């Protein structure tokens, strides 16, 4: 009897965690299928006839497909550049214990984004790079690079030195060893770093808000612009929110083990 009661209390406690976490997202999803009448009803309606008109509006009246593609281009490019720059640097930091370098790159993680955004805006304006993919991708690499270095240096530290040394005895160069032995063993880390730096870029609002205009506008800006109208079309806004949140969630669920590992790494590393 006591055991069952204990289990019930535990289940109740878990519900107290699950409901607040999940409810806002469920409510966003539900609202995205409501008509304006259902959404502005007071008290809020739990049962309603779902409609797709909000999604139609988002893709027909607004060019969300274009913003979606822009976000993808910027996210993928910024992630690739972050990996290309960050992987060799992380290996070098782990292998040669370059703690000062590590510190430099971690400062980018601590730095308030606007402290960079102001000079970037001035410099990119002068170079005519406002509203260019180049400027946006470079800005987003400042988000991804510290992540890649932070995550990968701790993965590389765990690779036994003997593996590398035996390859070198066989005559392989460092770059060969790095590419064909060290990177493959550390692939879980690469997946973690890739997923997180893409997500950071995908979700970034501030950099794109200043550096992008009509041509390179990304999803977060497009969603934000939706509410600047006088009369807010809540259904369409919620549909837009779903369009931007859903890919992030799908990606996270696909790589959940890696995302958890990446986000909680600080704890184990200290």
């Amino acid at each position: 009897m006591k055991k069952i009661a204990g289990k019930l209390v535990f289940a109740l406690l878990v519900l107290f965690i699950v409901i607040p976490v999940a409810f806002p997202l469920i409510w966003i999803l539900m609202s995205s299928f409501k008509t304006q009448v259902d959404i502005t009803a007071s008290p809020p309606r739990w049962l309603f006839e779902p409609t797709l008109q909000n999604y139609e509006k988002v893709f027909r009246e607004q060019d969300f497909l274009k913003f979606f593609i822009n976000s993808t281009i910027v996210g993928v490019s910024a992630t690739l550049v972050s990996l290309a720059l960050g992987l060799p640097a992380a290996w070098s930091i782990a292998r040669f214990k370059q703690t000062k370098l590590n510190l430099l790159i971690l400062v980018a993680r601590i730095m308030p984004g606007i402290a960079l955004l102001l000079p970037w805006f001035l410099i990119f304006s002068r170079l005519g790079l406002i509203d260019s993919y180049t400027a946006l991708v470079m800005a987003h690499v400042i988000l991804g690079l510290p992540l890649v270095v932070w995550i990968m240096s701790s993965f590389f530290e765990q690779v036994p030195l003997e593996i590398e040394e035996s390859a070198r005895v066989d005559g392989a160069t460092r770059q060969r060893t790095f590419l064909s032995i060290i990177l493959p063993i550390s692939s879980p880390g690469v997946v973690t770093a890739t997923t997180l730096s893409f997500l950071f870029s995908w979700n970034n609002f501030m950099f794109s808000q200043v550096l992008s205009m009509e041509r390179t506008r990304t999803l977060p800006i497009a969603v934000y612009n939706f509410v600047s109208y006088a009369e807010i079309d809540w259904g369409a806004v919620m549909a837009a929110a779903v369009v931007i949140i859903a890919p992030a969630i799908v990606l996270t669920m696909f790589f959940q083990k890696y995302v958890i590992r990446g986000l909680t790494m600080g704890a184990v590393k200290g």
Partner: protein
Amino acid sequence: MLDGKFLDRHAKVLFPLPAVLFTLALMVFPVLYTLWVSFTNWNLASGLPPRFVWFKSYATVFAEPRFWGAFVRTLYFTGIAVAAETVLGVVWALVLNREFVGKRTIKAMMLLPLVATPVAIGIAWTLFYEPTIGIANWALKLFGLQGSRWIADPDFVLPALAIIDVWQWTPLIALITLAGLAGLSQEPYESARVDGANGWQIFWHITLPMVAPAVLTAVLLRSIDALKTFDIIYSTTQGGPGFASETLNIYSYNLSFNYFRLGQAAASLVFLFALVLSFSALVARLRRRLGL
């Protein structure tokens, strides 16, 4: 010259070089540039060329009540949000720190707020907080409480925004604490149980001290980000009503990109950066002092 052998011999320099050059160009140089701008009276709206004025922009900014208001609000917002996240996160982690069916699903679910786009979340909460049609007031009425104006109420806007932050980031503290708990050795627990310690004693004298480094790391990460919160505030209130939710980040953004008072904006940014940096250094030192 740049063949495989050269790269091999100088790997120590060449491997990190591209990342270092990039960081120098896109971070170090811009920061120095901001520092320089902060010593000028540059104002894009005036159309005049910037003039070097030493600390005059700092003096102007520090004389503005609006700046100090933003400073206090930044600390207030960060304080209440991170405190609530820490308490809730640790409690959640303690509840979930056992084996049960569906544990993986629940951990996966806790990731959702962490990866959901903050701007979209902010906008969605604007609907939740809507006084007449929002779900928040409906919930209050359900418990017989009076409705609130939430983010439209100057006295309540910061706690209301902190609630969004708490919703989004409590899972991070919970997950980090869970990871810390999973790595604890079982030995002290066994001997404590042999000595007849009760659940509360075990928590206070064994679990908490052992998991403290993990929790402190989580708190540090969260505080750094909370001090810089931008998306949630900008997408809901833009610092309003009035200036009631204008934090240092929002204030600096407005100075830069709405008023184009670049010299003063840069001065306020240097201050914000120093604040975040000294906070990080302080926590690092505290940790060493406590031997965590």
